[in-house]
């Protein structure tokens, strides 16, 4: 296993780079999109609520692979040429954003309704109340669940390997089937994913603790 890594480390590292890039981009995009759709879901307008829940239900209920394949194979035929990395990252962002929207919505719902009423009666607009009173608390409530989503996102980024996105999994496939050392190739890739997901989990735990202290 060590010689396998010694012989192939540049390949693994380049895959690691693509996986990190895709994960970071998708994390930012899905957090923004997810928050927007969560806000739409709790808005007072029926049309906006309908729009948000349609979006969420579509991307939450279609397998990630299908979403990615559509962006990879169908969009280039009719709209614009996008490569595997871009298609994979877009698919990953949209898919995860649906779950994040649901997570944040439940966080918003967990904030007592009196808070909104209090903020509004103190002269804040709806948007101000959301921005300064409700959302900060909602994020704190959602932290554990958000942490899960982020870890899932990193692991789901392996979908890039199906569309030639050059990520960790793609490189592992390529190493495994040129050296025929299948098990070691994937064990190494597992370790790389751990290097990404473990610190993320710990950081989320750390945030949770910090969040609780402020509450008291």
């Amino acid at each position, binding site marked *: 296993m060590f010689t396998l890594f010694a012989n192939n480390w540049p390949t693994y590292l380049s895959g690691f780079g693509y996986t990190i890039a895709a994960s970071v981009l998708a994390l930012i995009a899905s957090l923004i999109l997810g928050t927007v759709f969560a806000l739409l879901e709790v808005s007072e307008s029926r049309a906006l609520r309908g729009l948000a829940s349609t979006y969420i239900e579509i991307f939450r209920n279609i397998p990630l692979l299908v979403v990615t394949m559509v962006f990879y194979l169908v969009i280039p035929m009719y709209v614009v*040429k996008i490569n595997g990395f871009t298609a994979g990252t877009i698919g990953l962002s949209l898919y995860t954003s649906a779950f994040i929207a649901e997570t944040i919505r439940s966080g918003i719902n967990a904030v007592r309704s009196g808070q909104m009423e209090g903020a509004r009666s103190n002269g804040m607009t709806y948007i101000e109340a959301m921005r300064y009173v409700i959302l900060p608390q909602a994020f704190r409530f959602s932290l554990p669940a958000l942490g899960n989503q982020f870890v899932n996102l990193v692991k789901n980024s392996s979908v890039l390997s199906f569309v*030639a996105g050059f990520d960790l999994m793609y490189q592992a*496939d390529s190493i495994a*089937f040129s050296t*025929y050392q299948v098990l070691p190739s994937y064990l190494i890739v597992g370790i790389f994913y751990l290097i990404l997901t473990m610190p993320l989990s710990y950081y989320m735990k750390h945030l949770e603790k910090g969040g609780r202290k402020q509450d008291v």
Partner: protein
Amino acid sequence: MRKVTKALLVSLLALFMAGCGKPRGNEYHQIVKTKTITWGIKTDTRLFGLLSVKSGKEEGFELDLARAMTKQMLGPTGQAKFVQTTAKTKIPLLLSRSVDVVLATMTITSARQKIVAFTHPYFAAGQSILVKDSSPIKGIKSLNRRGIVVLAVKGTTAVDNMKKFAPKARVQEYDDYVQAFAALKSGQGDAMTTDNGILAGIASENRGYHLAGKTFTDEPYGMALNKHQPDLRNALNKSLAVLKQNGTYRRLVEKWFTGIKGFSVKEAEH
């Protein structure tokens, strides 16, 4: 708690390692005893091994050959069992003994011979390229340019060959031929490359695509089996020789490959 986890991990790993090196019995005796040969076959490759959507059955040259080989080796009561493999999974499945013999468009190479054993070749393929009819690409030489993207399938010899014949081109790898061809169709690459027989199968079903240029490698297909199984290997070679002699082999080649554009039946026979 930590210690327990560690101990568990270590013992799991040990189990893995032990599993890898377990001694194998004589597979030929097993096959004769159970009267069953488990063949690793393709189900995504037209003409060779394809799962027909209409009949729900596997069909193709390699399937027919596997059935004929089974009858030849075990007599009329012999059973051929089929397990689907891909370029990615065929060697792992063989090593884990999920299949006895792999008969799945597998080129005999020296790198593979270090891991598995091969029978005599049963098909003489060669690598070629498939392009859209409107493509300016005329053959392998026009692929060796920067900016050219060539689509291939993970774990095939085509990937390594591209590094040799067109090192400037970028190779993108997919899980199977269906996905690679879908990528070609949607414009994700300039050409798709693999063995001529496989490409001919795709071209015969999809208008607007053709094989560009001649084959530029020799890719003799062999049946793969586990190493250190001389009895099984001899039995397979003997049956193949008999089928070639009594005309069965020739009949199968003609059945599947006659009339395919740009494909020579004579060249394919080994």
